[in-house]
């Protein structure tokens, strides 16, 4: 560090404001890439902090507090904001100043919150954000008068264009003293009275001409149209999924090639033995299993961030609310569940936008039932082996079976949500009340920073667990080594083989043989690993999605049809991969829910596979 040693304490400044005031954009503009994203201890609320250079040479820690409508919290996020403001958050220094970020195009509601903050008697600066949009809407605000009437500095800002940042810094510097300020005064805000006061303030300082939100209303005329709206939503989602799968194809290939290249290089340089096996089949395979999904996950996150920042996400929630309400969820659960078709991990991470904790938990618990892309290779192999490639009417039978599997997952999720909302997540959900912000073009800087934050979260949260578990599963599948005179595949002598054999009696009633039971053990790392694990137990080398023909022949000979169908049914509900359980642990901040999730999905998969098997046997298949 070349910075001069500063003995003075670093002041702490927080950005506070209603959701959709452009708080995060302002935070990104003020701190750039100098930000740290973490979690507040004990809650799954993101803590974003960065260094803010003040014009007088001092620097402050800037915290982006979760958006809230008032100081009476209704969600864990809002409670963090309230506690931080009152200096009651464990491990957080009391605030030296607050920047109240308000939307200049929605002065009425946002000023009410400013009045609430002002009553606390802490150093306050108002950032009148999106002042360009206000001007475009024909809203003229007498800023000097507003500052005068409020008694605090008011600075016009346009966060996405980095305008007004210096003035904001100067205003802040003038409000931050050398000693920490007195703690905020506890108050008893009468929201309605403040609301009235805010309305009369607005009447004094604002003159509006022309139609506000004209652009948003024009877009909504299509986006929320009873017929066009759902079509547009379907088109956007179709494009999103096309992009996730087709754009990711090439980079996924490069990553696979790169891993294979490293494995081949290691094989040339190291002698055959456990070390090579650990590096190639454990570490590199583990890293590969994580990184290979990164392109898909990044593309999916990019779409989710763009949908959120543009304001379209709330429109999707509006359109889908009625359908989601039927199973006791609300419209906000729609996009996370949809994302889970690519991978449950980004889906579960996206549930943070659901404000009701019960709805959020329910959504997390059913997310793994959406058929993720890792299940496709499993379906492809088994369908390829057992479902004849003939046509039923205009459709191919194999495609129909695949569709039925996806559909079964969705149906299972709806039934599960319905059941969960009446049992473990029982209780009235807070009523559906959702602000629909004006549309905005997402700013590139906000997109990139948002994407970076979520990608690192994925890599550190899921990646470390996936890698560790892959190595553990590798060890289980490699030890003990088969004897020299082994007649059976090596895996049968290993711990995984022994676990599989021990599990066999459990799986026998649903038509699973020992080989399947063994393959399910390493399949816990990631579902598609079950394919290569089946290859291993049937003593085939190097089986993956691309060269599954040998495995298909082998399975045809080894499995009766009812077993194959039961295996497909199993994977619709399949106790999910370890990374899903790990992310559930992170997002629910307890082991209770991942254990519950595993148990209920295991039971569901077992019952579904059992019914499928016995019905198929009864029909003489």
């Amino acid at each position, binding site marked *: 560090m070349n910075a001069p040693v500063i003995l003075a304490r670093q002041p702490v400044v927080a950005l506070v404001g209603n959701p959709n005031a452009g708080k995060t954009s302002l935070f990104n503009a003020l701190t750039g890439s100098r930000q740290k994203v973490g979690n507040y201890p004990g809650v799954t609320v993101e803590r974003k902090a960065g260094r803010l250079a003040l014009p007088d040479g001092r620097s402050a820690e800037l915290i982006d507090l979760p958006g809230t409508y008032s100081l009476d919290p209704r969600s864990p996020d809002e409670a963090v904001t309230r506690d931080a403001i009152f200096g009651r958050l464990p491990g957080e220094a009391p605030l030296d100043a607050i920047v109240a970020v308000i939307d200049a195009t929605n002065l009425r*509601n946002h000023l009410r919150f400013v009045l609430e903050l002002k009553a606390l008697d802490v150093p306050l600066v108002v950032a009148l954000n999106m002042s360009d949009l206000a001007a475009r809407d024909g809203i003229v605000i007498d800023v000097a008068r507003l500052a005068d009437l409020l008694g605090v500095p008011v600075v016009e800002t346009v966060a996405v264009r980095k305008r007004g940042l210096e003035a904001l810094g100067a205003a802040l510097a003038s409000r931050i003293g050398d000693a920490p300020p007195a703690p905020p005064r506890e108050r008893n805000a009468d*929201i309605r009275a403040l609301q009235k006061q805010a309305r009369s303030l607005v009447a004094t300082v604002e003159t509006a001409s022309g139609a506000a939100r004209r652009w948003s209303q024009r877009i*909504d005329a299509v986006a929320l149209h009873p017929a066009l709206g759902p079509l547009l939503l379907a088109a956007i989602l179709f494009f999103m999924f096309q992009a996730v799968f087709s754009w990711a194809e090439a980079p996924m290939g490069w990553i696979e090639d790169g891993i294979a290249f490293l494995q081949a290089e290691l094989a040339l340089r190291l002698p055959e033995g456990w070390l090579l096996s650990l590096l190639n089949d454990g570490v590199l395979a583990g890293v590969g299993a994580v990184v290979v999904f990164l392109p898909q996950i990044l593309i999916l996150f990019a779409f989710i961030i763009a949908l959120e920042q543009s304001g379209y996400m*709330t429109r999707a929630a509006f*359109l889908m609310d009625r359908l989601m309400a039927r199973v006791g969820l609300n419209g906000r659960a729609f996009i996370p569940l949809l994302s889970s078709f690519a991978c449950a991990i980004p889906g579960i991470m996206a549930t943070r936008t659901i404000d009701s904790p019960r709805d959020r938990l329910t959504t997390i618990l059913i997310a793994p039932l959406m058929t993720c892309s890792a299940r496709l290779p499993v379906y492809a192999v088994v369908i390829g082996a057992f479902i004849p490639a003939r046509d039923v009417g205009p459709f191919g039978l194999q495609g129909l079976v695949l569709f039925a599997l996806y559909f079964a997952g969705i149906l299972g999720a709806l039934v599960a949500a319905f059941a969960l909302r009446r049992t473990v997540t029982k209780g009235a959900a807070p009523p*559906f009340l959702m*602000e629909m912000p004006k549309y905005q073009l997402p700013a590139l800087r906000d997109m990139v920073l948002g994407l970076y934050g979520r990608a690192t979260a994925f890599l550190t949260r899921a990646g470390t667990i996936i890698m560790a578990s892959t190595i553990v599963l590798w060890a289980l599948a490699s030890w003990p080594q088969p004897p020299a005179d082994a007649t059976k595949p090596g895996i049968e002598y290993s711990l995984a083989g022994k676990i599989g054999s021990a599990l066999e009696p459990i799986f026998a009633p649903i038509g699973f043989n020992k080989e399947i039971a063994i393959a399910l053990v390493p399949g816990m790392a990631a579902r598609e690993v079950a394919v290569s694990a089946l290859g291993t137990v049937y003593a085939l080398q190097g089986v993956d999605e691309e060269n599954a023909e040998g495995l298909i022949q082998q399975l045809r000979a080894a499995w009766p049809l009812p077993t194959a169908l039961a295996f497909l049914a199993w994977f619709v509900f399949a106790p999910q991969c370890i990374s899903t359980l790990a992310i559930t642990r992170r997002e629910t901040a307890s082991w209770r829910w991942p254990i519950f999730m595993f148990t209920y999905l295991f039971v569901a998969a077992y019952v579904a596979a059992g019914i499928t098997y016995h019905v198929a046997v009864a029909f003489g298949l």
Partner: protein
Amino acid sequence: MTASALHRPIDSLAIGEVALISAIDRAGLAPETAQRLCELGFDEGVDVEILHRAPFGGDPIAVRVGNMVVALRRDMASLIEVEAP
């Protein structure tokens, strides 16, 4: 005009018809919900209009309240009464 014509639920407004909130049945709401409604700008005397009704049965509705657009379900909307401006 009868009293019921003067005060009717917000849900009975036609799309684009502007009215003023005349009463909110706060007793019919949980206290937090009543407050959240207030925080979102729903208050007696504020101008409102229904902008959109969702497909699949017209529930929820998107209401403009002041400069803000808020989505709410019809069961809650039935507790908000409006009158002609």
